[in-house]
């Protein structure tokens, strides 16, 4: 069976402020989708809503993973069901070593029915897998001993997110600007690794402003978000157009969405 993530007419607000206004999106396993759009258009909000951030309130619409109602699940249940997001801004967890965090996390995601307190995956196996993945990402082994995202540079944080993607092997992954804050070499490495990790059969939703990621991970579909809606969907050529010429054409073509985008961003300045 090919897994399918279906988002229908999704309305999401934060602190009672409407952000997403009817998002429709269908992802199949093995597909790569690019999600583009100007700052503040609601791309990260979509990711947060898919993962179940408590602050992002779903006012109407549905998210389904195959026949399963994703909205009824807590974030950890979503992770165990095969959903993953690489955060645009990962948070630091002081005092918790990367390796310990990942071992527990990998155990839970691989054994969705694991009860608290049950055994973790064997240390030896886990270590080998972690080291292999870190080598591929050209990460120093020391990295595993550092505290999760604590004092990481922007680039290290993004790399750590990719490492988690590699370990957790989700069915669907949202990569929220996983290529920002990286220098050219790092972007190339990140792009190649994602291609390698995801090539297997993940469904990828790539949020990006750059083209490197998309060159290595050519999307079958490109979606443009503006004012909390997906206003246009096309193929790879749409991503190429937006990358070359920006959002002027889109903004002009969808004045209502553009007005809403402006309104959201201006209230952002005030708040």
């Amino acid at each position, binding site marked *: 069976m090919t897994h399918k993530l279906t988002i229908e007419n999704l309305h999401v607000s934060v602190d009672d402020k409407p952000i997403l206004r009817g998002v429709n999106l269908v992802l199949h396993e093995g597909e790569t989708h690019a999600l583009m759009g100007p700052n503040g258009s609601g791309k990260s909000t979509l990711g947060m809503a898919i993962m179940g951030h408590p602050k992002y309130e779903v006012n109407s619409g549905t998210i389904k993973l195959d026949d399963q109602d994703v909205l009824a699940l807590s974030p*950890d249940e979503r992770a165990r069901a095969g959903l*993953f997001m690489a*955060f645009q801004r990962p948070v630091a967890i002081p005092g918790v070593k990367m390796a310990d965090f990942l071992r527990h996390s990998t155990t839970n995601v691989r054994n969705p029915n694991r009860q608290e307190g049950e055994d973790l995956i064997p240390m030896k196996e886990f270590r080998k897998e972690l080291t292999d993945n870190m080598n591929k990402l050209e990460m120093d082994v020391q990295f595993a001993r550092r505290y999760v995202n604590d004092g990481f540079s922007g680039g290290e944080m993004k790399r750590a997110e990719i490492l988690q993607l590699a370990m957790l092997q989700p069915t669907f992954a949202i990569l929220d600007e996983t290529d920002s804050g990286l220098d050219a070499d790092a972007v190339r490495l990140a792009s190649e690794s994602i291609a390698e990790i995801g090539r297997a059969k993940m469904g990828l939703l790539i949020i990006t402003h750059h083209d490197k990621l998309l060159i290595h991970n050519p999307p079958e579909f490109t979606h443009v978000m503006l004012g909390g809606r997906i206003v246009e969907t096309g193929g790879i050529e749409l991503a190429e157009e937006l990358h070359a010429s920006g959002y002027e054409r889109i903004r002009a073509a969808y004045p209502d969405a553009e007005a809403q985008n402006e309104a959201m961003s201006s209230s952002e300045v005030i708040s």
Partner: protein
Amino acid sequence: MTDTMTTADFNQAGFEAFLASRREPEWMLAERRQAWSQFSDMQWPGRRDEEWMRTDIRLFKLRQYHLAFDPLDALPSEIIPLLDSHITLGGHVHTVDGNCVSSAIAEQWTQQGVVFGSLDDLTEEHADRFQTTLLKGSYDRQVDRFAALHSSFWSGGQFLYVPRGVHITEPLHVLSALTDGAADLGHTLVVLEDGASATLLAETASEQEDSGGLHCGAVELIVGDGASLRYVNLQNWGSNVWHFAQQNAVLGREANLQWTSAAIGSRLAKVNQHVTLAGEGANSQVNGVLFTQGRQHLSYHTLQHHQAAHCSSDFLYKSALQDKSQTVWRGMIRVDEGAQRTDGYQRNDNLLLSNEARADSIPGLEIEADDVRCTHGSTSGMVDEELIYYAMCRGFTRKEATRLIVTGFFQQIFDRITIDSVRDALGLAIARRVRDYE
């Protein structure tokens, strides 16, 4: 009154019966009588006393408790020590309700003059040694009525004496257990002669998690010149035990003290922890770990008293609080006039796991010397929901995520604890207590 009494109340008749049961030199009995007369003249501390302002003991009734003279033969089976697993011990002392039920010390150490055992059992033989040390260091017999009570009725407890230059390489373990509703007025006395070293792991425990009782105790650590002591105390009384204690250390020249003080038990605790740096170049590190829940109230008053020059003291206290529990931490660095080149550090961080929990932090400095470096600080905050969410997105349940964050919060202290088994036991005891919060 009959001569087969098995308990003593904390009143005049009980005191007389208690004295009659003791086999102690006259000076010791005289000191007890003096303390008892002070006790009789004093009032319980109240909310007007600065140290008790936030600590309400109106529900504490001394008459509900009495001292037991009839020891059990063994530890009740419910009591499971936490600090003695996975290590080879050099000796142990187990007490129940202030009475020793078992003690041992490896011959290797006794041959070198080490004395370790129940303080009661050693009173006669080592009376001379006690005359200059017991309740003599920085212990304040008159600071409040609890100190007077302890000075009158202290009993049970442990004594460790390490002669000059002797290094005890294996940790020693001390367990003070309390049956439900009982009283323990135990006294711990540790004397390290010059250049000696030892590790003492002390813990308290109750029969049940919700057991009651009274502990009015004292710890005195006397660390000689160039001596080195690692002392761990884990306060794990049942959740209805009243716990009052003075815990003091006096350090000689170039002495070293690493003191890990963890508190997870008791209904209400009022503890004064004083480290006196009496000899030049002495070094002390205190690692405080508090984890509270339910309606527990733990009040810790620490003093880093720099009497001599070139000493350092480094106190780090971290508390995590859940439910409606409360902690008070009042820390003071006092630097006497002659204590130049003092390096003093104190810090208290609090992690609130519930919005009904409350942590008060009152750091303070009193500095008479002019060439010192003293820093202090404190923080308090709720668990960051963004961290919980991040961990949940990686498959951690909310409870596992909270536990992870709490463990991470204490990691800085765990990293400073140099005894693996202690670190593991504390980590586990705390993790087990973290509840699910919505």
